[in-house]
């Protein structure tokens, strides 16, 4: 039986919060395994591309051609900031709980800047072209978060 009732469309819809949470386990394969093992051992590795240049983090393949790569090259833990963004209010997920910079850092001996974190204390300390060096975490676990860069 139909029951006529007023279902007033002006009513607000119900809302509720929901947390999507999972810890993924990413197997690494040979090249990335060597890179992350290196980080755990406080070493930074890149990989040599067909044109002789070195890219870091290493890829199993050349990004431009798809060609397989396998010659790992150890790099010094310092380099140059090529660009940066200043995060004045870090989000909870982000690696530092105080203001910091995300930066493109070109490590000496490598031709490809990569995205990482510079713990510079203050925005005024950041400048493109500045030298930075790796500061390792107290305990390294074999992850990209094992280090941050600091002004050299």
């Amino acid at each position, binding site marked *: 039986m*139909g*029951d006529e009732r*007023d*279902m007033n469309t002006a009513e607000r819809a119900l809302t*509720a*919060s929901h947390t999507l*949470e999972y810890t*993924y386990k990413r197997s690494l394969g040979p090249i990335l*395994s060597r890179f992350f*093992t290196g980080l755990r051992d406080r070493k930074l590795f890149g990989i040599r591309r067909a044109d002789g240049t070195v890219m870091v983090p290493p890829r199993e393949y050349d990004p431009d051609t798809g060609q397989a790569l396998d010659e790992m090259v150890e790099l010094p833990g310092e380099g140059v900031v090529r660009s940066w963004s200043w995060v004045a209010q870090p989000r909870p997920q982000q690696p530092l709980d105080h203001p910091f910079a995300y930066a493109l850092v070109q490590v000496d001996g490598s031709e490809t800047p990569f995205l990482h974190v510079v713990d510079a204390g203050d925005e005024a300390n950041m400048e493109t072209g500045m030298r930075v060096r790796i500061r390792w975490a107290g305990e390294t676990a074999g992850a990209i978060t094992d280090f941050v860069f600091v002004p050299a």
Partner: protein
Amino acid sequence: MNAHDTSGTEGDGSPVTVLRAPIVLEYEYSAGQSASRFLRAIAEGRLLGQRCPVDGRVYFPSRGSCPQHAVTFGDEVVELSDKGTIVTFSIVRVPSKNIPLELPYITVNVLLDGADTILMHVLDADLDDVHMGMRVQAVWKPREEWTTSTENILFFRPIDEPDADYDSYKEHI
């Protein structure tokens, strides 16, 4: 959560072969306009179906529109009984993180009296007794625990009524 929790193997010298990547994302869901009315009604212990304006079929639960005809349901509602017929069922012996029930349990597709769509729910009955066409009724949580959730119905339970005729529900399998 802190990104420094991300870790491979500890420093025993063996190669790092796995990266642990915790991902935690917060979302704010909206039930949508029409389903909200249905949920508010269930908080009062009422089961409201909605009628498709195209073919007059009664949808329960309602998601606010008819998937077959792509029309938003109008204001007309249909109050449904909490009795119904088991259209089909399964006995589940597989644990699932999202389901807090003890194994084994019975999942049922129930056609509520007055509705033209099935409700997926669980049944409290002897595993040997459950069968297609069985008549069942909802068992509700205590009234003071009712919220805007279909979980107000704890489960269905068999009632002492003759089985429904197969022809009366076969199109809902």
